[in-house]
């Protein structure tokens, strides 16, 4: 079957599946809507958490980022998985025992303060919206690349699907859709990875492929690296020949350390991940569910590291010193006589992910360190050069001092998206990647939208606006709160869609933003709420505000207002600043709490209860 029809078929089947699940798992109560009724099996919850967690960026971009970062990319791999250890050991079981619906619920109750609750609601909404904007954009991009529709139309189709299953099914609907989405996503990621591993190293498991030896000789432009060289040796030699730091050679360990800490703390503090542990029946289940989530995540993340190495070797092997025209027309062969068909280059050049700027006019592609031109490619309409390449209007950078002048622009995303074509895999694998990338983006977007809607309907309306002053209880009936939750979800989807169509121009930095803020705002306050009985509302509120304002200010100043790198505090990148924000939060909260009165006795009793698993019961309403 033709590629385009296959893509429609695969994406269509997966969407029908999600909608079918949504109809089956319709939410009937607020408890269904917020925590899926509290009866999700820990393995299913682990799978849903993994899908919730792994976003469009993990699926499409991470392998490419690591491919170009090399050793330092380990910060992302360790950071985005190590956070689950913190979550399992320090937060999840106790929050499950606490047994309410949302993160602001915990902050508001534990710190006996509506102010604390409102601060938490604002932080939840801010963190979740920054994150969801990137997901909707991701949905739009996948649609435009694979289904040849406009990015904006793609965003709207994505909104409609998410609308259907999250508004109708709430947490219950998205939990079971996420289980299906995980399966789609992991199959779509593993199949091309296994083929790639077999091709490059003749090893079935990609995780073991990095221990393998190359199955081919290739020319890196400086020398021929013989067949049978250990993969990472071949890669180290090749990238060093091209003027890059060796692939396995670490860069700044200090920044790698801080980034890893910030990503771990952020992972443990992200509200849409935390809330997943409210959905399992018992404290024991909450612990074990974190383990399952991490297994499901690690299956993909350990593969990502190998895909990164394979695709960098493949890139150099395929494009270095090849004649552009013959390459894209499929007329070339490798040293060993196997065909080197570059039609993928043409496909992704059209999509703007790769570009060639023939600086020396020899008609051949040269790849090395340095920029082919300044910035992202600004194509000169549909004008083509003498060899048929798309021309760019970008200014030229200064010549580099290496042996080879770089002529190639490569977007990170191509390392995953173009792999099936580079590896000559059948069309259905490409169709599978489209469905997988959409599953990754939609599952994360839906999880975030539920958190936003719960923060508004449950915390803001139920616990602050419609709070009865005498009884302290919500005056909303179950039915009207559920209606408000659905309305809030609709509004949240509209805003997310708007942000997806009109991205605020910083989608790339969103990750640093969301993680830094989650780390600095939530992780310390929840942890102290459990482990420090003496922590009071004064300490918590000043702590959250200090962490938020410091991290927010630092990122805004250096990323958006053009702050000078030379002024970095202790040389810390904005991506790692959440670590400092977290430390400030802890210190301020501790000092302020010791200078103000201890929390009331009933709160201290509450902390005692949270610490002991027995009697967890159901997640209950107020």
């Amino acid at each position, binding site marked *: 079957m033709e590629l385009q029809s296959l893509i429609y078929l695969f994406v269509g089947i997966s969407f029908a599946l999600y909608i079918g699940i949504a109809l089956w798992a319709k939410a009937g109560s607020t408890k269904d809507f917020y925590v899926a009724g509290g009866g999700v099996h820990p393995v299913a919850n682990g799978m849903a958490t993994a899908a919730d967690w792994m976003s469009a960026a993990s699926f499409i971009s991470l392998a490419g980022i*690591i491919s170009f970062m090399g*050793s330092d*990319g*380990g*910060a992302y*791999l*360790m950071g985005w*998985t*190590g956070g*689950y*250890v*913190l979550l*399992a*050991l*320090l937060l999840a*079981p106790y929050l499950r025992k606490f047994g309410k619906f949302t993160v602001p619920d915990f902050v508001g109750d534990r710190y006996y303060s509506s102010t604390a609750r409102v601060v938490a609601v604002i932080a939840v909404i801010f963190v979740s919206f920054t994150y969801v904007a990137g997901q909707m954009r991701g949905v739009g991009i996948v649609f435009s690349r694979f289904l040849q529709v406009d990015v904006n139309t793609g965003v709207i189709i994505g909104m409609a699907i998410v609308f259907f299953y999250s508004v109708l099914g709430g947490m219950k609907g998205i939990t079971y859709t996420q289980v299906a989405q995980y399966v789609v996503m992991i199959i779509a990621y593993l199949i091309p990875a296994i083929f790639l591993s077999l091709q490059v190293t003749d090893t079935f498991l990609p*995780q073991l492929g*990095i*221990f*393998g*030896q190359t199955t081919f000789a290739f020319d890196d432009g400086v020398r021929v690296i013989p067949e049978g*060289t*250990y*993969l*990472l*040796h071949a890669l180290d030699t090749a990238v060093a020949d091209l003027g890059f730091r060796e692939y*396995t050679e*670490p860069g700044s*360990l200090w920044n*790698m*350390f801080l980034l*890893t*800490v910030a990503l771990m703390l952020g992972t443990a503090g992200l509200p849409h991940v935390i809330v997943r542990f409210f959905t399992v029946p*018992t*404290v*024991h289940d909450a*612990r*074990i569910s*974190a*383990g399952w989530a*991490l*297994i499901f995540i*690690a299956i993909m*993340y*350990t593969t990502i*590291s190998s895909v990164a190495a394979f695709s960098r070797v493949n890139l150099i092997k395929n494009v270095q010193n090849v004649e552009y025209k013959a390459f894209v027309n499929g007329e070339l062969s490798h040293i060993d006589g196997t065909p080197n068909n570059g039609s993928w280059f043409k496909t992704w050049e059209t999509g703007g992910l790769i570009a060639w700027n023939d600086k020396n006019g020899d008609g051949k592609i040269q790849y090395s360190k340095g920029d082919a031109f300044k910035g992202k490619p600004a194509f000169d309409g549909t004008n083509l050069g003498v060899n048929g390449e798309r021309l760019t209007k970008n200014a030229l950078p200064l010549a580099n001092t290496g042996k080879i002048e770089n002529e190639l622009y490569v977007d990170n995303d191509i390392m995953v998206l173009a792999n099936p074509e580079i590896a000559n895999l059948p069309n259905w694998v490409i169709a599978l990647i489209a469905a997988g990338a959409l599953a990754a983006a939609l599952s994360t977007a839906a999880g975030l939208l539920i958190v936003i809607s719960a923060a508004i309907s449950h915390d803001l309306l139920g616990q602050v606006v419609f709070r009865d002053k005498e009884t302290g209880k919500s005056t909303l009936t179950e039915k009207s709160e559920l209606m408000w939750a659905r309305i809030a979800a609709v509004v949240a989807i509209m805003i997310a869609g708007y942000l997806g169509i009109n991205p605020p121009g910083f989608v790339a930095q969103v990750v640093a933003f969301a993680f830094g803020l989650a780390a600095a705002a939530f992780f310390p306050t929840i942890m102290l709420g459990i*482990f420090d009985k003496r922590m009071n509302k004064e300490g918590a509120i000043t702590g959250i505000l200090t962490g938020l304002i410091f991290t927010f200010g630092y990122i805004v100043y250096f990323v958006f207002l053009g702050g000078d790198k030379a002024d970095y505090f202790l040389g810390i990148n904005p991506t790692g600043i959440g670590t400092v924000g977290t430390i400030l939060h802890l210190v301020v909260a501790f000092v302020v709490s010791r200078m103000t009165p201890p929390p009331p006795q009933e709160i201290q009793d509450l902390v*005692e209860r949270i*610490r*002991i*698993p*027995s*009697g*967890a019961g159901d997640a209950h309403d107020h």
Partner: protein
Amino acid sequence: MSPEKAQAYWKENISAILKLLAVWFIVSFGCGIIFMEQLNAIEIAGVKLGFWFAHQGAMYFFVILIFVYVKTMKNIDDKYGVHE
């Protein structure tokens, strides 16, 4: 449950968490970052050990750690009779 017993339970819980977090720190920040360059001197089939910890090894240990934690806590819960 008496306050003394609750306190003893909490103390055992904290000590279990601290031990596991020590391992967590060693396999990720220790082997994967701080001592990466030293460990990189050791090489297995072309893969430097420090690099492996940062790119794969730490993740395997993380998974094991959580399941060890589940088991440890279950034993402590049973000992104090606080399981659900």
